């Protein structure tokens, strides 16, 4: 084999070894199997997987494979990104990158190996999900299993998406401004755009069918196929009320028309520009270029922030003498909040903007626009509070201070809560003047958000879990305008006391669990 290919293979094999040996990988496999189980309900018990209009679709291989491939594609394009978007970052963080940079391995071959590693990992996930879905079809399908139908459907749904997601992940890692927590949030918005826009544009006019090439999730392809086969534009996946009198529709399978599958396959070519951007931005672990790009990334904000910090240190901090002296739990929380403000300039900007806009704008705008924006921006910031100490290996340092180790979970919860209230207090006060119950619901939502951030952050040790799950929740909540259960913050004004109580109960459950978990870890001596 050519030595260049051998090098790419070496990077790929190491990437696979590192990913598949992670303790979370078997858990992920189990989750995929569980997802297949949940996705395909028992028809005899009234469960439904797929509706066209109000009519249930018979669970034959064509229908189950297409539905499960779509759902898998949606999840893989979102969660898959967060699973693979740490391959270059890992080499940077561990310091192995410097060793690699001093070898003759070119940047192109290094990134090609990383891309291949991402593709293999996502493909294995997709294949496991497909096998799980085939197993569920045998158990719950209404027609015999046709394995080739599954293979073809999963192939057309996943094969074009996987290289694109793999390349996008690499691009987000290599482009300085897209990397880090900000990039994680940006990707979510990128995902929502690619989820919705190709589908809407292609549905609006046949002239825009080429836009389906940018349909990474496969939703547009799915909608197009349903409309071609059944003439319907209205479909539902998952449980929904249906007309049980009507006989189930038999979905015959994909059309395999060139005008549908060619744009789908063409989306694989998006891999190239994403990869080229990644290659152009890759800094080959050069410490000088990295630090200068970090400076560029924060730039003006950082300089403004430094001015603010100087002001704080000279004017405000000497007056906060109450933070010194005999340690108390409250002082520790206040110090952690102060650290948050010092670490994240965005937090202070958010506080200032929230105060200014909440006072200037009408009440309806505070509730409809400002509060949802606050919720979205708080996600990456809150995700960092509970995870930063262990991620940056400063936990051992702060645990040597009194009252920290034993109450770490409580400290992180209250620190995140006070930080959130710094941002949210003025909007809450304004809402309370008009609608006290709405303000109480929004406050409860903030507590729920902080509890979730603490719970998921401490349990998984990574901010990614909270970022992905909560952004997904926020997205669902903000687009479900008629379901009271999702109006967790009263933003749609359909929240009920029962819903508020439900989210309070979930918050308490998460807090009690995480407090117990931290206590258990401390007893085992591994909570560093």
């Amino acid at each position, binding site marked *: 084999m050519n030595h260049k290919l*051998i090098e790419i293979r070496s*990077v790929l094999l190491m990437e696979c070894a590192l990913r598949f040996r992670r303790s979370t990988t078997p858990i992920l496999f189990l989750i995929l199997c569980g997802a297949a189980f949940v996705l395909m309900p028992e028809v005899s018990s009234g469960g439904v997987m797929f509706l066209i209009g109000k009519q249930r679709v018979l669970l034959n291989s064509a229908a189950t494979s297409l539905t499960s491939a779509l759902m898998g594609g949606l999840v893989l394009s979102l969660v898959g990104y967060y699973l693979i978007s740490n391959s270059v970052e890992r080499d940077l963080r561990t310091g*192995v990158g410097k060793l690699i*940079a001093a*070898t*003759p391995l070119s940047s192109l071959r290094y990134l090609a190996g990383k891309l291949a590693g991402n593709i293999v990992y996502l493909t294995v996930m997709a294949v496991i999900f497909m096998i799980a879905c085939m197993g569920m079809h045998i158990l719950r399908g209404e027609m015999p299993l046709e394995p080739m139908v599954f293979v073809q459907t999963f192939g057309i749904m996943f094969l074009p998406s996987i290289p694109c997601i793999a390349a996008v992940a690499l691009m987000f890692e290599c482009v300085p401004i897209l990397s880090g927590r900000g990039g994680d949030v940006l990707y979510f918005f990128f995902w929502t755009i690619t989820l919705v826009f190709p589908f809407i544009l292609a549905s609006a006019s046949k002239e825009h069918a080429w836009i389906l090439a940018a349909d990474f999730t496969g939703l547009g392809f799915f909608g197009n196929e349903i409309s071609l086969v059944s003439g319907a534009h209205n479909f539902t996946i998952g449980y929904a009320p249906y007309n049980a009198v009507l006989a189930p529709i038999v979905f015959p399978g994909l059309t395999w028309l060139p005008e549908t599958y060619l744009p789908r396959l063409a989306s694989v070519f998006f891999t190239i520009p994403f990869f080229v951007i990644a290659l152009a931005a890759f800094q080959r672990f*050069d410490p*000088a270029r990295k630090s*200068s790009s970090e400076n560029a990334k924060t730039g003006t904000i950082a300089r403004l922030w430094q001015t603010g910090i100087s002001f704080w240190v000279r004017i405000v901090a000497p007056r906060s003498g109450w933070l010194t002296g005999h340690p108390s739990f409250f002082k520790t929380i206040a110090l952690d909040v102060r650290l948050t403000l010092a670490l994240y300039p965005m937090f202070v900007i958010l506080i200032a903007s929230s105060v200014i806009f909440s006072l200037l704008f009408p009440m309806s705008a505070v509730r409809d626009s400002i509060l949802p924006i606050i919720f979205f921006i708080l996600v990456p910031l809150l995700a960092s509070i509970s995870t930063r100490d262990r991620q940056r290996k400063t936990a051992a340092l702060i645990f040597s201070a009194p009252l920290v180790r034993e109450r770490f979970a409580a400290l992180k919860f209250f620190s995140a809560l006070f930080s959130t209230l710094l941002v949210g207090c003025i909007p809450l006060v304004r809402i309370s003047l008009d609608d006290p119950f709405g303000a109480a619901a929004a406050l409860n939502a903030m507590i729920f958000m902080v509890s979730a951030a603490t719970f998921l952050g401490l349990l998984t040790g990574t901010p990614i879990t909270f970022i992905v799950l909560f952004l997904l929740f926020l997205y669902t909540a903000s687009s479900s305008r008629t379901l009271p259960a999702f109006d967790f913050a009263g933003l749609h004004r359909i929240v009920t006391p029962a819903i508020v109580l439900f989210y309070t109960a979930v918050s308490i459950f998460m807090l009690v669990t995480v407090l117990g978990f931290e206590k258990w870890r401390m007893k085992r001596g591994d909570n560093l």
Partner: protein
Amino acid sequence: MLTIESLTKRYRTGTVAIDNFSLQCSAGVVGLLGPNGAGKTTLMQMIVTLTRPTSGRILFLDHDIRRDPNFVRSRLGYLPQDFGVYESVTAFAFLSYLGGLKGIHSRQKVMEVLESVNLHASAHVMVKTFSGGMKQRLGIAQALVNDPDLLIVDEPTAGLDPEERIRFRNLLTTLGRNSLVIFSTHIVSDLAAVAGRIAVLKKGKLITIGTPEEILSSAFGKVWEIVISSTEFENQKSKLRVSSAVQKADGVHVRFVGSDGIPRGAAAAEPDLEDAYLLLTEGARPS
């Protein structure tokens, strides 16, 4: 073998890490000595092509490494100060991986290198179970796996126990017979034991370069010892360039360097390399 000509590294922030630095080295062990922030690590990062110089050039075996970085990379062994390892693979897998990237695909070679750093018994053990010293030895092994013509090691003995340190120093001496080894450390005794030449850096500039004996000779007649009371020591310590101070029953035994303002009662002492280093970095102005 290695020629550095008027090398300068200026960061965008304006900080000059290396300032018009020139050096010529042939096979042997060259020690780099200097205080924190002197530019040792930046200099090494430029030689290993990790970062680019702002101006000047580096020639290795007459090849400009900026124009042909792979020439030096394929003949290079590099152990950075803050390197890391993949925790969830075995030492053998990790070394095979980095060896493979350097064109070494022989399992036997990988085992030989692991043996040279005394890790052969743990070759198939996960790296996450290794102690800090074992990881450091694995780092040394990856630097040696391709029999480099140029070995650059930054603080390699940090974390090694005394026995392993001696073993590593012997290894460097052996390598230095045919290859060029550039070795940066704060442990002056390590340099004294292996370096044929020592280059002293301060604020990005080369202050001096010479054999350990030449460096040492610059300190003759400038090292002193005195026994004084604790109170007197408190008064004197800001005025003296103290290299060591030990509290004993008869008072504080102070060793200091300098040629002016020597207190009465101080006796001349035999200098060591640490004294010479202190004199050079504290006293001399970079030229």
